[in-house]
């Protein structure tokens, strides 16, 4: 990115001053190296988001920001309904509430080493992953609606996990205001066979070891110590969310055209929060969030069952569950000191509430919210903690992952999946995937250095480093 247009506010904070149609400035949180490596499209998209009606304070980009559709991936923007604010289907994306959850296992790396292969094989056998895979659960129309209203709460009621899990999920596992009637029959049909499936692409289930602790006090609050084995699951709302994204993106583009609204980019298609279309989208999008939470809850149940088979007695309590692609109604104090209800879009960004936030579980309240960052299958993932003051910086948000360093086409040209699997096995990382091509496209070097991204998030005061996780087993879709 050409940095000559930016004003440097701090070591990891850059301002894109408001100009032209921009109603507020843009703010990019990143080191100089990360900003320079970003595509110019990111600045363009940050500026486009800043031009939307009712935007509050600034259009933000996280350290892992890259070129998305309409909003950059790693984009955060909040809108006030009372000031003509909008909700944007493009600002949430196709994979609504894609997210990460991490589970403790109570095991140390040495406990797992001898059964790692068995564990990898069983997890791969039990977790439906990849294109065309289906789950064991089939929901009737009524059951589907109950799931869309209830999220992980519904899943626990159905026997997938326990009440204790719900306390460690954003909104306690169930977002209010979901409207199954706003979800198309096509979206429900796409979900019919996909409950409890991992998906494909960058989605995964990993067994990981805590490689290094960076903040002992917070790690203790989270129940983490070096050598601990954890399990992380990255997936989203599956076909239902994808179809809702497709349905509403089209509807919002057509509606904007009919209303004579000129959008700098059609992917910015949005609707006023105080409109029938805006409210219908919010209802459907919240249903998709609940679908993602239910899906991760079912996958958790499957992972627990696999562990219990290989390592009898192992218990896998939830550490935390975060969602990435969402629009959530939250209370924030804006730059002018007013406390107000805002609709915060986080597209490829994680909610990262700081210490003391009332939404956090009591045991994490002093430490701040766990922020779970996925890396690549060959390097590392991270656990951060929402920093004090993060709400004044980007409405309590942080980065979500490494971001790709190259296109899938380029990765496929450079690597063969079989070789990637063998090379990682030599390093003690067991990959299980139905597709060698999928593995090649997700090769570790196809991703940016996640360490640089989390360093920037730390230095920018968004979220502090707590622990680095090294993969032992990776089930890829």
């Amino acid at each position, binding site marked *: 990115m050409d940095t000559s247009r930016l004003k440097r506010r701090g070591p990891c904070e850059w301002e894109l001053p408001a100009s032209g149609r921009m109603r507020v400035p843009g703010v990019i949180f990143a080191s100089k190296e990360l900003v320079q490596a970003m595509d110019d499209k990111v600045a363009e998209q940050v500026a486009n988001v800043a031009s939307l009606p009712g935007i509050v304070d600034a259009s933000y980009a996280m350290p892992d920001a890259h070129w998305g559709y309409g909003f950059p991936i790693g984009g955060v923007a909040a809108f006030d309904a009372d000031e003509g604010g909008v909700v944007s289907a493009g600002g949430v994306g196709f994979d609504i509430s894609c997210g990460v959850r991490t589970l403790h296992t109570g095991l140390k790396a040495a406990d797992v080493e001898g059964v790692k292969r068995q564990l990898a094989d069983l997890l791969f056998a039990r977790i439906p992953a990849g294109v065309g895979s289906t789950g064991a659960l089939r929901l009737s129309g009524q059951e589907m609606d109950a799931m869309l209203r209830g999220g992980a709460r519904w899943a626990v009621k159905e026997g997938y996990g326990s009440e204790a899990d719900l306390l460690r999920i954003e909104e306690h596992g169930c977002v209010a205001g979901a409207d199954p009637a706003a979800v198309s029959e096509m979206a429900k049909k796409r979900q019919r066979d996909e409950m409890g499936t991992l998906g494909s692409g960058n989605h995964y289930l990993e067994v990981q070891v805590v490689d290094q602790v960076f903040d002992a006090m917070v790690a203790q609050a989270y129940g983490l110590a070096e050598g601990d084995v954890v399990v992380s699951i990255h997936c989203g709302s599956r076909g239902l969310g994808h179809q809702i994204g497709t349905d509403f993106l089209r509807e919002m*583009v057509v509606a904007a055209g009919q209303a004579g609204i000129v959008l700098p980019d059609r992917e910015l298609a949005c609707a006023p929060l105080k409109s029938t279309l805006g409210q219908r989208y919010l209802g459907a999008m919240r249903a998709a969030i609940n679908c993602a939470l239910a899906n991760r809850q079912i996958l958790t149940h499957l992972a627990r069952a696999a562990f219990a088979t290989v390592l009898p007695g192992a218990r896998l309590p939830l550490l935390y569950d975060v969602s990435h692609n969402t629009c959530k109604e939250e209370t924030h104090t804006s730059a002018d000191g007013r406390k107000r209800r805002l609709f915060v879009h986080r597209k490829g960004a994680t909610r990262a509430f700081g210490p003391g936030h009332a939404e956090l579980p009591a045991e994490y309240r002093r430490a701040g919210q766990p922020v779970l960052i996925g890396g690549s299958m060959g390097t590392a993932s991270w656990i951060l903690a929402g920093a004090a003051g993060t709400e004044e910086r980007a409405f309590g948000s942080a980065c979500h992952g490494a971001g790709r360093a190259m296109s899938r086409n380029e990765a496929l040209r450079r690597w063969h999946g079989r070789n990637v699997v063998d090379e990682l096995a030599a390093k003690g990382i067991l990959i299980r995937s139905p597709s060698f091509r999928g593995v090649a496209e997700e090769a570790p070097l196809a991703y940016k250095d996640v360490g640089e991204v989390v360093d920037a998030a730390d230095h920018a005061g968004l979220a502090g480093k707590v622990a680095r996780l090294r993969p032992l087993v990776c089930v890829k879709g």
Partner: protein
Amino acid sequence: MATQAAWETFPHEADVGVRGTGATLAEAFSGAATAMTAAICDPAAVAAREPVAIECAAPEVELLLLDWLNALVFEMATRRMLFARFEVDIAPEDAGLRLRAAAWGEAVDVARHQPAAEVKGASFCELKVMQQPDGRWLAQCVVDV
């Protein structure tokens, strides 16, 4: 049909671009659909065993491309199929265009097809349908994977 259709995928930072060209609009749409299959697996590995009928209508040609690709995404997801050959017909209707097509393909065979990633949806990103100076049609967009 669609004998002069050509296709390619093009790079996008996080996802994949799909592009079809042809002597007619229908051929370009057919090529874009083949490119979308190529974003998932090698289209040559997919056998054109059974047809699925697809019909959609849109007020303008770029929305029609989006609707066409998204209809294929829906059929792939719900039928667990991959498609290799496309017979496309596009005709004006009322104030817009109507597409009628047969998508030929087969059930996903993970071992044989080695599908890398499912397509979540076709996006407005890089969406373009146009007749080029040489007279050939081009149809493209980025698909989310």
